[in-house]
């Protein structure tokens, strides 16, 4: 019954936003350092559909990270609007922003960013603790998610005792803890070798199919680009191209 209601609400939300989970409208960002101004973003506009798998490409210094932070609710634009699930994030106070980050968005980082002093299980339950989920429920759910990423048997290990690929899978499990609508991944395969990187890409695809989460990732990984629905190119603070992988003719081969 609840699940049905959720679906109803989701459908309603999708209808209102025209199926867009994130809308960025003419986003500009200026960093001031003393007297000098740096225009990191010069008017970027982008709509992200619910359930889409989007990759963002761009050389370093292009404003890619800034744009990424904007649509992830980590930073506020100087001008323009960013709507996450129809909500203008510029209007939110710190408590509402924390709420949004906690429940609507899951973050996956290039360097995993697991809390080293906590076990895998504690890392996954932490966002649920922030969301006010009871310890028992959080534990059960965390174990379920760890099962999904294939690491249930390592639940009590510390991140330092695991390989990079395993750590990234724990990080993905953590990002899913509060069932977010959006998964934001910053070069998630950047610190991994080809094979483990591929496993992560497969995991993303699987999660999107099973959970219907929207995945946005900044990446240079060709395999990741190939798996995505759309590729957004950012150069010099502006979105210059939006392609589908088919248009790009990406050739990747297996490495054994």
């Amino acid at each position, binding site marked *: 019954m609840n699940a049905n209601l959720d679906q109803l609400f989701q459908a309603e939300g999708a209808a209102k936003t025209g199926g867009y989970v994130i809308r960025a409208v003419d986003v500009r960002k200026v960093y001031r350092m003393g007297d000098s101004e740096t225009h990191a973003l010069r008017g970027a506009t982008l709509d992200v559909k619910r359930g889409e798998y989007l990759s963002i490409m761009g050389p370093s210094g292009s404003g890619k*990270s800034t744009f990424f932070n904007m649509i992830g609710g*980590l930073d506020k634009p100087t001008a323009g609007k960013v709507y996450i699930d129809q909500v203008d994030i510029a209007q939110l106070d710190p408590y*509402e922003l924390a709420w949004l980050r906690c429940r609507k968005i899951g*973050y996956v980082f290039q*360097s995993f960013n*697991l809390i080293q*002093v906590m076990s895998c299980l504690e890392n996954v339950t932490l*966002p649920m603790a922030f969301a006010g989920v009871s310890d028992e429920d959080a534990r059960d759910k965390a174990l379920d998610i760890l099962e999904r990423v294939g690491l249930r048997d390592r639940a009590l290990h510390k991140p330092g005792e695991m390989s990079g690929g395993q750590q990234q899978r724990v990080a993905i499990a953590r990002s899913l803890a*509060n069932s977010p609508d959006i998964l934001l991944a910053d070069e998630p395969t950047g610190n991994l070798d080809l094979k483990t990187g591929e496993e992560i890409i497969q995991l993303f695809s699987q999660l999107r199919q099973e959970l219907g989460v929207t995945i946005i990732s900044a990446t240079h990984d060709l395999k990741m680009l190939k798996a995505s629905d759309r590729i957004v190119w950012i150069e010099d603070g502006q979105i210059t191209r939006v392609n589908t992988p088919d248009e790009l003719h990406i050739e990747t081969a297996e490495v054994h």
Partner: protein
Amino acid sequence: MEQVGIQKKLSFERAFKIAVQGIRIRLGRSMVTVSGVVLGIAFLMSNLTGQLIKQSVTAERELRQTVSLMQAMINSEVGDLAGKHLAVATFGQLTPPEKALLASLTGKCQLGGDAKGAALLLILGDAPQAPAALDQLTAGMTQPVVLDSVSNRQFTGPPPATVRRELFFGARLEQEATELQIKTRQAQFRTRWIVIVSLLVTVIGVSNALLMSVTERFREIGTMKCLGALSSFIRQLFLIESSLIGLAGSIIGALLGAILAIVAYGFTYQFTVVLSALPYGWLAVATVSSIVTGSILSVLAAVYPARFASRMVPASALRSTV
């Protein structure tokens, strides 16, 4: 439909658990911070204990000197004490040297309130007014001689010609006492300054160590914020950590400081003297106040680093090169 809610604060218990976990895992790093507190509080405590020891040892020494002086006075008046009868009249409260004198006299000679047949009358107590006349007090003495401990004590009635009134302490002694008081006050002032400076150094040291641990944990703090942590939670985390570090460091420091001071003064004087002279009640007060001071200062030292950490933007967690 409510689209965005308000993030609730995490319980203190939860924050406490996370803070303790952090300290335990980063034990090496935490120990450095703890040792800063230990040093500062050990210094404070050794100063306080030293002062207590010095005061009580010199006080005891002075007491003994005063008593022997009083005994010498009595001896010069009556000669050998054996078999003599001394009368004692007390007005007001007995001072510590007077008490010690009486204790030393008991057994050596007869003490009594009745002056009849007494070789000497001791007038003791700190009251400046005696509600009696000297001739009444000395009634029955063959040679009325009085030894008084207060030089300007007033008696009722006119001063009798037959009674010889001598004083235990002359004017010279009183002058010496006031000089000594000034010297001790100066010494106290000096040590107070040293203690204040050392505590300042402790605060800055702890503050610096905590700032270091904030910069080390940039990414961790940013990550926690990405996961939905409120700024107040981050602040709470650092304040709990610093108060625990402060408490542990202060307890160790206070014990260390007290032991060091006792050992050091034990070599200067004697261990038995130091241990017997030590006022244990005051030592406990000094210990508790040192521990409280250390804990409060550690929390104060954490205020800036905690603010700094809590104001960090979550985006810094995304940057891989921190």
